[in-house]
């Protein structure tokens, strides 16, 4: 009875509910505003980028949920990594993510971000995005339709409203050594400046 996908999903949702009940009213209000105003930096790394224009325009109109695209990482809350990443692209993705101000979240769009997808045995793409950056929400499929992406956004809204300490940007701060080691293993000596210098003195 206790095994399988549905009980597991239920246990995750119960956990979100219990976190929510411990928040003050102001925290809940702020979380609500955060969940209903999501500025997206769409990083079109792979073929997933083709599903984003219909999501943002007349046909699917994701602006109904308060989601709008922005041009610069400075203003963005959510980074969509849409598909496979070559190491060369990943460097730029990491750089963009580190320029975003907190709280920030990542959506991995397409199977390639989960396990490499059809590029599983490719010599020049990464398999699992979560090794290098903390992914908050996966939207699987090859390619996921805009409906699936919208579903991903709705689930992410629930996650933001739960205001969990498991959120990706907190993970990236507290487990930076892990992410950095993976990045260094991939990039060798050609790595970007250390992100942790940005939060020196913060209570981690």
């Amino acid at each position, binding site marked *: 009875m206790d095994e399988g996908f549905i009980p597991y999903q239920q246990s995750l949702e119960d956990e979100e509910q219990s976190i929510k009940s411990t928040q003050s009213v102001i925290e809940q209000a702020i979380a609500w505003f955060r969940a209903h*105003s999501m500025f997206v930096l769409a990083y079109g790394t792979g073929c997933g980028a083709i599903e984003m224009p219909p999501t943002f325009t007349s046909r699917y109109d994701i*602006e109904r949920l308060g989601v709008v695209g922005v041009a*610069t990482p*400075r*203003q963005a809350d959510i980074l969509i990594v849409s598909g496979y990443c070559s190491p060369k692209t990943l460097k730029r993705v990491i750089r963009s993510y580190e320029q975003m101000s907190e709280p920030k979240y990542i959506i991995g769009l397409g199977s390639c971000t989960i396990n490499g997808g059809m590029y599983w045995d490719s010599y020049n793409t990464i398999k699992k995005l979560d090794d290098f950056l903390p992914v908050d929400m996966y939207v699987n499929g090859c390619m996921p339709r805009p409906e699936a992406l919208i579903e991903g956004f709705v689930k992410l809204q629930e996650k933001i409203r739960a205001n969990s300490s498991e959120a990706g940007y907190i993970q990236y701060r507290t487990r930076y050594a892990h992410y950095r080691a993976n990045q260094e293993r991939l990039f060798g000596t050609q790595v970007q400046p250390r992100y942790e210098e940005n939060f020196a003195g913060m209570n981690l």
Partner: protein
Amino acid sequence: MLLLDLLLMLLIAYGFGFLYYGLYRNLSARVHGRFGPSLAQSFSDSIKLFVKEESTTFGWMFYLGPVIMASGAVLNVLFIPFLNQGESLQGLSSYGNLIVVLYLMVLGPLGNALGVGSSGNPFGVMGVTRGLTRLLALELPFYLAAIGVMIDAGSADFGIIMQAQSTQSNMFAHPLLFAAAFISFLGFMGKSPFDVVGAPQEVYSGPATEFSGKFLALLMSQSAMFSFAKLLLMVNLFWGGADHLGELVAKTFVLFVAATFIGSVYARFSTVQSVEFLIRIPTLLGIVGLALL
């Protein structure tokens, strides 16, 4: 009492500025064949940005830029009377007149240039350069129309200008001056075809490129309040002001919807085109309007 009045004016400008911005997003979504966000979306955006972390630093001038802009917008709201009669919602209008307001309208772009210039971002600087170039051409027809209105009323005082329109509003008395001011007003509101400053697909967010978190929220709030101030200015100069708050809301709403619809159907000019257009047509209308006074 005056302090309470000023606070109320700022609150009204903030609330209606954001509501109108939400309405703008909604109406332009309908024009695109979408549903668009809720009316209160801009409030969510601004509150979220106010509680967001600030990640960039480019020295104190970078932070002072949005503050100068916001002070320009706040002063504009306070110096323009909301109503054409009574004691309340008059703000500081007895201490200043139309000339002060026209002068203060330039404070925002100046603060923007100082702040963005210190960030050194090429897209920001491009946006500011475009903005200041356009401003030169925008001011000319608007000032001509304002001078016409002042000559007609025989005063630069808002109260007297609004009183002079008690029988016939300036829009019908001086249609050419109104046309010149309205075209220029579209540009001041950043509507198409004059939206060259923060033009998406060209200069990304333009001047706002490097701003994040609280300072972006401040920029959004001041822009909403400044839009309301410009609506007020047009209503006072050409539509005889408003007797009560309901009339004010109705008049600014009509003006705003007109500007939004015109902005929704025109494609964007290039910077040079917008300057050429503003210097040719509305300026000419303004000069002819002045000559006919």
